């Protein structure tokens, strides 16, 4: 048993080294376009993981992710922009003096963005988590929309609908994938802790969980707040990736994409979310082809903008109608699973030989 655990740890470290090598290779050899896509995939992986914690592990259908991203993105952007560019950008209404001179380094700003989003998560969660299922969905959707509208209207802090530009840019793949891997490890630790067991008990049967002495509200609030925290971090990274934010970015569309990632990867599988985040992000770029004008057999087809989202909606419907467990179901891609597969193949071979 002990030896088994040690060999698994060694395997994990080997995989981490392999991943680092891969990242190192891509940072040097890939052009900036591909790196950008990989970074976007990392952000979607963080979002998928955080929604999976809430939806897949705790069974709460929250549609508020874009709102928490919005909070995170704006917090990080306002904290890191230089005073000079703030003065330039807030030309309609000058920024509140308290924020005008602030210029934080990037890493504390990312953490602050997460904490701010978590604070909002807490404030939203306290009233909203008394609700369940579809009421929770529509209430969190409402909160996300309220956050967006407030951001649009508090011009002296957020610059309103003009948005923020000249956010310091980060190109390093290490920051984005480092954050994604860290998120994965933290959430994996969490779902194997007593909190994680409580989350899953609530998901499977709320009344039974309550009867077993689990404080439903407390654990739901914990899960929701942590989900908001990581959504905020992803929002901050999104700002650093595309160097501008505006309120229309954080529409429901965003939440829909995250939902697609979680459903496709399997509700209740962390590694599934990461895999499908990468798959969906790459698909999003590859499918840009269908939105370009093209000619097939002499027929000129004009560019169909919006076609990608049609394909994604069909994909979501197909998965939910015919393959509800998604890619991974509630299974994880971990060593138990891999070694189990090996054993299966071995014993099958032995069976054939005999």
């Amino acid at each position, binding site marked *: 048993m002990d030896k088994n655990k040690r060999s698994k740890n060694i395997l994990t470290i080997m995989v981490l080294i392999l991943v680092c090598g891969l990242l190192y290779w891509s940072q040097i050899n890939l052009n900036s376009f591909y790196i950008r896509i990989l970074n976007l995939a990392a952000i979607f992986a963080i979002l998928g993981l955080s929604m999976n914690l809430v939806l897949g592990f705790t069974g709460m259908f929250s549609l508020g992710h874009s709102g928490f991203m919005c909070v995170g993105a704006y917090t990080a952007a306002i904290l890191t922009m230089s005073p000079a560019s703030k003065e330039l950008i807030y030309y309609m209404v000058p920024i509140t003096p308290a924020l005008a001179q602030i210029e934080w380094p990037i890493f504390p700003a990312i953490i602050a963005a997460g904490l701010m989003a978590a604070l909002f998560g807490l404030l939203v969660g306290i009233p909203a988590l*008394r609700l369940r299922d579809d009421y929770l969905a529509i209430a969190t959707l*409402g909160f996300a929309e309220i956050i967006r509208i407030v951001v649009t209207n508090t011009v002296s802090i957020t610059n309103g609908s003009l948005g923020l530009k000249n956010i310091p840019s980060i190109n390093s793949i290490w920051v984005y994938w480092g954050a994604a891997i860290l998120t994965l490890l933290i959430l994996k630790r969490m779902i194997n802790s007593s909190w994680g067991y409580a989350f899953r008990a609530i998901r499977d049967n709320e009344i039974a969980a309550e009867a077993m002495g689990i404080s439903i509200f407390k654990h739901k609030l914990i899960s929701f707040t942590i989900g908001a925290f990581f959504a905020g971090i992803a929002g901050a990274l999104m700002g650093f990736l595309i160097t501008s934010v505006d309120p229309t970015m954080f529409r429901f569309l965003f939440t829909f994409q995250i939902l697609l990632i979680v459903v496709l990867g399997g509700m209740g599988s962390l590694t599934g979310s990461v895999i499908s985040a990468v798959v969906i992000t790459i698909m999003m770029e590859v499918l840009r082809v269908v939105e370009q004008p093209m000619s097939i057999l002499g027929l000129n087809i004009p560019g169909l903008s919006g076609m990608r989202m049609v394909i994604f909606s069909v994909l979501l419907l197909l998965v939910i109608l015919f393959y509800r467990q998604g890619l991974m179901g509630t299974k994880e891609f971990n060593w138990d699973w891999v070694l189990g597969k090996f054993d299966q193949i071995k014993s099958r071979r032995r069976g054939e030989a005999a």
Partner: protein
Amino acid sequence: MSMDIFLQNIANSITLGSLYALIAIGYTMVYGILRLINFAHADLLMVASYIAFYGILIFTLPWYIAFAIAIVLTTLLGIGIEKAAYRPLRNAPRISVLISAIGVSFLLENIGIVAIGARPKSFPRPSELVWNIHVGNISFLSLTIIIPTVTLLLLVAVTLMVKKTKIGMAMRAVSRDFETSSLMAVNVNKVITATFAVGSSLAAIGGLMWSMQYPQVDPLMGVFPGLKCFIAAVMGGIGSIPGAMLGGFVLGFCEVMLVGFFPAVSGYRDAFAFVILILILLFRPGGILGENVVEKV
């Protein structure tokens, strides 16, 4: 605020309220039976408006034929959506059905964007239905009278159908207890189809009147009205038809008056409905006319 503007606001709020009420009925009926927020309901508004738009402009049909075709096709679409996307998930967890509903809604919106383009187009108002009326110093559109009248007639019709006809009785039975009524030889699938048919045709009529009142159509035009009408249905007590009407009128009234009395906060107009929703869900989850139900094991 002068008296004239006040009366103008009253007229506006009645018009908006009747539109909300009409669309909210579809939500409340479907929710009452399937316990499902039919997200696609909002997009049926858009579908109906576009069919009428193309009927009038491209095929140069008279408005009444275009409207009739729009209502029939939208109703069929509503029934089809239920058959394709909700029926296979009848025994699945509620979250799956909800995800399916969101998927259908997104599909319709994006098919709209692909086929029609995201740019808003102006809706051709039939001149037989829209003219100006002057009373004293106030001038208003004929729609201010037509929309509430149509709404009231349809509300009476739906209420009579639910209360007096056999299919209406079956609907009430299914919404009270799904399983028992199927044991009592109620054809549940047929009842659900009928519910979607009624709800979708009301959404279609609501959509047509919406695009006459606010004469602009775009593929996402249904999203906000849809959310607000759902909020109206929750406000009145979801599952209850009089509740949906009441909720619709109250929400329309509050929205118009908020903007009328406090122009400073008009930017927050869309947030207001959600604030109401959250307050209602927290303090009176059953809605104004609903009853509070505690979920049992």
